[in-house]
């Protein structure tokens, strides 16, 4: 069994490494369609990354080595996290999910603190804003997905009690919101927010560092979607090889939905977003926990 897993999972990891780049191309095409444009070809993100890797590097920042290190570790932990999510989707062992969450926390934190390493005021302002939002959102993401995983494990849907279903629905909602926010799309794309005040990290980097940063962002987008899809499919369908296939099939649909939401919304104000989100999360999580406790005692 273990041997088989290694054989199936290795090509999957390679697939995971490519998927986000292609789906980003799809997202750009969709965005263009919603804006009445022709837009770039689906393969444009690949061209962009290749171009960035191939151009001559202009090393302006003295801390560039640390930036490389933090971005690379972000990508490596991200891929490792994807490995454990897949294991979870196959076997339904919640320990795998907790590993995945822990690794994803490292991915996010290394990616988020990168702008802070760059000695530039704009990058720093953008970075601090990302960190504030990240702290709020990551807490909610980990809490809600942990709860979600625990519930999905118990196959709660078979119970006929409506209170349980409400609790699960609330947790799922929290998890989906948190995963949307973590995907750094409008209204929460704070690194790029307020282009005239702080263009953040994207202005500071060029060449392969920029490519790594973009790639790391796209990989995170993939992980956050799989993090909510895996327990959802597990809950509704069950954990198996077909379950994993369903997860992978649902992935493009989820990606497109997130992209559509991003197009029809504007950017929220950077100092308001974390506070509002914190309030919503606390309310949702508290309500669902209370519902669960009430049910347990009743």
């Amino acid at each position: 069994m273990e041997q088989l897993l290694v054989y199936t999972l290795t090509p999957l990891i390679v697939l995971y490494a490519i998927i986000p780049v292609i789906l980003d191309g799809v997202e750009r095409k969709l965005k263009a369609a919603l804006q009445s444009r022709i837009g770039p070809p689906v393969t444009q993100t690949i061209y962009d990354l290749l171009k960035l890797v191939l151009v001559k590097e202009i090393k302006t920042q003295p801390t560039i080595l640390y930036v490389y290190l933090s971005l690379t570790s972000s990508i490596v932990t991200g891929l490792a996290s994807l490995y454990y999510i897949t294991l979870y989707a196959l076997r339904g062992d919640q320990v795998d999910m907790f590993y995945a969450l822990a690794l994803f926390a490292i991915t996010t934190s290394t990616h988020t603190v990168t702008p802070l390493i760059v000695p530039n005021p704009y990058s720093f302002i953008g970075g601090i804003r990302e960190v504030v939002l990240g702290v709020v959102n990551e807490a909610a993401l980990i809490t809600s997905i942990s709860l979600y995983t625990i519930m999905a494990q118990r196959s709660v849907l078979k119970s006929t009690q409506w209170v349980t279903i409400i609790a699960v629905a609330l947790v799922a909602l929290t998890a989906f919101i948190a995963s949307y926010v973590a995907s750094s799309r409008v209204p929460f794309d704070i690194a790029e927010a307020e282009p005239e005040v702080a263009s953040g990290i994207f202005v500071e980097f060029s060449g392969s560092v920029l490519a790594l940063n973009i790639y790391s962002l796209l990989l995170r987008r993939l992980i956050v979607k799989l993090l909510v899809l895996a327990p959802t499919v597990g809950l509704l369908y069950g954990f198996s090889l077909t379950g994993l296939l369903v997860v992978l099939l649902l992935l493009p649909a989820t990606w497109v939905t997130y992209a559509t939401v991003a197009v029809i919304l504007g950017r929220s104000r950077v100092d308001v977003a974390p506070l509002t989100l914190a309030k919503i999360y606390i309310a949702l999580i508290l309500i669902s926990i209370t519902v669960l406790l009430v049910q347990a005692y009743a």
Partner: protein
Amino acid sequence: MSHKPLKLIIIAGSKGRVTVKYPYQEPLITPEFRGEIEIDPAKCIGCGACVKACPPNALELLESEKEVILRYFVGRCIFCWRCIDVCPVNAIKGTRNFELATDKHTDLYTLVVHTRTTCEICGKPFETTRMQRYIAEKSPVTEEYASICPDCRKRLLAEAVSARRVGISEHKE
């Protein structure tokens, strides 16, 4: 929250895609569009009316002993077509051409070279040969002055006037 923002999808759907694959597709310009100008060297007489009217100095007259050159530098041109309005012989034609990028600086210049006549009296370089012919055609009265430069004309006039004055004053005395 209202559902109104979602109407964007309907609007985008009904409008389709409005951008074009320029430069692989015809550019969207109307017949009214004003682009680069074309000077017909066969018609131009080198009078310099266009040079006087040109707001950004895109048209210039460069003068040497033997030649007068009308130089059009498209890099400065603002495509106002004032030169077309003022040209007495309709030598300038407007085109719809606006794709003017080039990797050779000299492509941006158009030169019309005119030969010059010399003044019959002082021998200094004077108007262009074509200009002289044009004036002769337009107004036969000026024929006898046509080949004399303005300086000499002024001198001739002054001499004539003073000769008459002198004549008058002699008469008085």
